[in-house]
């Protein structure tokens, strides 16, 4: 046989690589049922947990209780946008580390951005699966209809989606620098961001000392915009703008950090950790 094979080039080639990476991660999800926990069980557990708390504080549909229930359920829905997008990208990369596939990938002509795009592409599928579970469970068990939040939900979710990717890139940078010991951050970092972002409550509810930190997080402003949707105040473009700007700035810093960590990875020969 001749191994000389016709090869694509340019954008067609990039698209082929992105699809190949996405398909590779589809196989991972298909053959590792425990990975489905992230997109089925945890969303279900979260909605049951926070929906039940909401039902407890909202026995007679009193105004305050009704508000609390809505904040909890709309909060958990939007939180899962951050959670699913972050986990999909971070664990997608970690899968290569766990299966010692990093060296094989790094010696291919694939560019880093193509790899990330491929993982993100399949991550979107996981995101929609997770959100579908949240939406259906909230409707079935707690009569909370996501569509009541209106079309303004889309830009809020879009900003949170980007925030999730930025957090994931930060985690990947740390794993490149510190090895798989840093993998606990893939999940752990979210539990730091969750309370600080005011997912279920306004920033004013946080201890005063933490409020400046909370205000500095782009996620906080996206959740403020999300709560305004539930309150029927429409889309707060100013808050969403701050969230987007913060996300872009943070994203630029994280990409710079990731580039440095990748440089350190190559300079210090950290690939030996994965061979």
């Amino acid at each position, binding site marked *: 046989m*001749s191994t000389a094979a016709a090869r694509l080039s340019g954008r067609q080639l990039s698209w082929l690589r992105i699809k190949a990476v996405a398909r590779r991660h589809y196989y991972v999800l298909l053959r590792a049922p425990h990975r489905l926990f992230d997109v089925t069980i945890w969303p279900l557990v979260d909605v049951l947990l926070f929906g039940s708390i909401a039902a407890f504080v909202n026995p007679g549909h009193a105004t305050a209780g009704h508000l609390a229930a809505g904040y909890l359920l709309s909060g958990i829905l939007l939180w899962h946008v951050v959670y699913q997008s972050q986990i999909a990208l971070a664990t997608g990369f970690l899968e290569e580390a766990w299966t010692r596939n990093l060296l094989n990938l790094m*010696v291919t002509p694939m560019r880093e951005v193509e790899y990330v795009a491929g993982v993100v592409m399949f991550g979107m599928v996981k995101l929609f699966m997770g959100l579908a579970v949240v939406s259906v469970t909230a409707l079935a068990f707690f009569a909370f209809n996501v569509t009541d939040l209106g079309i303004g939900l889309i830009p809020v979710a879009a900003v949170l989606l980007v925030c999730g990717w930025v957090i994931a890139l930060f985690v990947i940078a740390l794993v490149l620098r510190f090895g798989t010991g840093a993998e606990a951050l893939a999940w752990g970092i979210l539990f730091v961001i969750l309370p600080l972002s005011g997912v279920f409550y306004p920033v004013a509810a946080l201890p005063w000392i933490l409020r400046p930190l909370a205000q500095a997080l782009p996620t906080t402003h996206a959740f403020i915009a999300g709560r305004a949707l539930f309150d029927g105040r429409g889309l707060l473009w100013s808050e969403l703008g701050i969230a987007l700007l913060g996300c872009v700035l943070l994203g630029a810093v994280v990409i710079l950090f990731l580039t440095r960590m990748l440089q350190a990875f190559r300079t210090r020969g950290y690939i030996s950790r994965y061979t």
Partner: protein
Amino acid sequence: MSGLTKRFGDTTAVDGIDMVVRAGERVGLLGPNGAGKTTTLLMLLGVVAPDKGWIEVTGHRLPKGRSAAMADVGFAAGYLPLPERLKVDEYLRFYGQLYGVEDPDIDAALDRFGVAHLAPARGTDLSSGQRTLVGIVKAILHGPKLLVLDEPTASLDPDVALRVRTGLQALCRDEGTTLLVTSHNMVEVERMCDRVVFIASGRIVADGTPAAVAGAFGGADLESVFLRLAGRDITEHPYERGQETERPSL
């Protein structure tokens, strides 16, 4: 590559290596453990950045031209596993597509090494020899100009090692593929390579045909050169000098 140098802390892994591998050559990169072979290969592949020196692969200077250079290179290592959750054909299609081959001829590539029957098997179900063969198939699927193999036959039984060697020889003959291979199996290298480069303590200490290198070190074959460089000069052993009548117990 020219003036290639790499230090890790106080250890100099590669110390000013100059080497040109010409198209169509079959080069064995040899040396004891820790000599700097794998570090040299990893720098050639753009995975480890050199401290000094430069590397050019098929006309592309690293690191800027890494992506274009790696499109012409195939790599396999005997120590790398296959990803757990992929079948062999999925794994090969995945890597073929990363190199731009939309629909790689997987069956033919597997058949070259006599393992076409492995296509539907999971990576975790393969023996180490089968994994090595599939890894090599992965490396040649896109028709690389340069094939880089790190310990391809380590831990293989003689039958599988022979299959690897035969397949590689046919590939180099039929496609004109350039081969750069590290191995601790000197007999295999003598049969497979037309040039050997010995590295010791990060430096090239010998470069030439297997016979010329063996001759230059006063040995009959590459193994005696290897043992000498590794600090265990076989001719210094009493048994080898003929002073002992019985083979020493191991």
